[in-house]
């Protein structure tokens, strides 16, 4: 009995990585023969639930409710414009929907400046939607300053997520 077989007998399930370690440990030249573990029943891939057209979920899935900004900036990046284009087209399809755009800033500015900066971001998104044909009367804006982070760590990754303008449906959506 090789030492590997001894190990295999002790442990019913032998992980591949573990047997490699064991081989190294035993420094044996003998070929290792193992039974292939029984195939597991595949878990079904997550069912893609299609949101009810015209619902808040539909808006979030098909358009995307959030656009992101660079540090201390409020001009729209190309990825932000693409998202806002989808928002505008969705909003033209559901003409009763009114929205509120929340401007947000990361924690790396002073609190009062961040209120003003986040207001600029909300307004950038609003102006773009209006330029794409959404009636200004359907859009209001609010500045959250740095008060509503969506990511809690003080890291570059979180700051990038926290610099955003988020379009929230206020009324007129189809109930899902």
């Amino acid at each position, binding site marked *: 009995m090789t030492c590997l077989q001894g190990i295999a007998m002790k442990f019913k399930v032998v992980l591949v990585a573990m047997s490699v370690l064991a081989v190294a440990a035993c420094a044996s030249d003998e070929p290792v023969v193992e039974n292939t573990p029984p195939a597991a029943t595949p878990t079904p891939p997550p069912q893609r639930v299609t949101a009810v057209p015209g619902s808040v979920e539909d808006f979030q899935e098909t358009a995307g409710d959030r656009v992101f900004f660079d540090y201390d900036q409020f001009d729209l990046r190309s990825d932000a414009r693409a998202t806002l284009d989808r928002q505008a087209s969705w909003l033209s399809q559901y003409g009763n929907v009114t929205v509120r755009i929340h401007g947000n800033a990361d924690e790396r500015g*002073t*609190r*009062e400046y961040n*209120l*003003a900066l986040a207001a*600029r971001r909300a*307004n950038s998104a609003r102006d773009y939607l209006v330029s794409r044909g959404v009636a200004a009367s359907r859009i209001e804006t609010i*500045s959250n300053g740095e*008060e509503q982070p969506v990511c809690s760590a003080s890291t570059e990754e979180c700051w990038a997520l926290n610099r955003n303008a988020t379009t929230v449906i206020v009324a007129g959506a189809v109930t899902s």
Partner: protein
Amino acid sequence: MKRFLTVLILTVFAAGAAAAQPVIDINQGHLNPLPVATPPFIGAAPAEAQTGAEIAAVVEADLERSGLFRPINHTAFIEQITDLDLKPRFEDWRVINANALLTGDVEMSSDARMRVSFRLWDVFGEQELLGLTFVTTPENWRRVAHKIADAVYEELTGEMGYFDSRIVFVSESGPRLSRSKRLAIMDQDGANLRFLTNGDYTVLTPRFSPSSQTIAYLSYQNTKPQVHLFDIETGRHEMLGNIPNMTFAPRFSPDGNSLALTLEDSGNSDIYLMDLRSRQMSRLTTGSAIDTSPTFSPDGRQIVFESDRSGSQQLYIMNIDGSDVRRISFGSGRYATPVWSPRGDLIAFTKIASGRFSIGVMRQDGSGERLLADGFRAEGPTWSPNGRVLMFWREERGSTPGVWSVDLTGQNLRRVETPGAASDPAWSPLLQ
């Protein structure tokens, strides 16, 4: 309420000319704090003695916290003070190196009034420096203690005190992604804490009126963030005017009759002045830059504010009508939240450079910049009533914010006790 304290001058045992009275050079004091003895104030009845001990302890803590005084451990005391009107045995205090000695006495009278008398002694000069009596109601004992501490501070430093004052701040609780922010007020030493809002909505940046009776703050109570006023006496919250826009960054004028604030319109933030009686607004800045965080000069004739009109946040001064705008900050980095010293000589600010926040001061022409404290986040300085100490909030990376104080010299950096996390402190003027 305003005149609840009666102050009497005690007969001073004038022992010749005040020759070598202990004097603290406030710019050097922290290096060599003055040893001071504060034995319990005398009280004939147990309740009086109890209050007397509590008053002396509050005075002692005030003096110690200033960093200018070093209270002597009571176990070293030799003489027990038993009569306020007898001269202390100076040699007993000299031998434990007390430079100043504070003695006091508490008397409750039959009409539910309390008389608190004290004498401040120059131990080495063997003379009385100061003697005062306060007459008030017993529940005001803490304020009497702070007034005594102010009197001692004034006598020994030549500067106005700051202990009889309050702090309004934002008390924070809960995880970062759903942080609750409540308006809270407390005495300068952390006592008498009260919450002024219940945490159902976020509040930010409270500021005192010059009378300390009204607080202007930013509230998210309605959909839009807007400036609200809170009246401490009546407990009434009120939205400022009927303005559809976001309004923020409020500051009272020194006469209390107007409020400088920022109003946002279509993404553009500008500074306005509101007459608090007529509620009429006049616009002070124009243009597409972010103009915000205005504060008045002590004479009420100028406003210092921050603007990113140059491309980054910098400090500017303008006249009260918006004219004669001039930039004063030219260092590297961004400058924000300027606050004029009550003495008028300095402007405190937040500086952001190389990813760090600092609290600093500069003269009103922008010269003499000095940084006093820094941190991952350090923001929002507020002046003590005498312009000697700055309070601000600070947060280390991944931590929760707290309130800190630092002397104008950059020494005596201390955490201010708050219940849990706290930010956005504002220091009241001396109470009236």
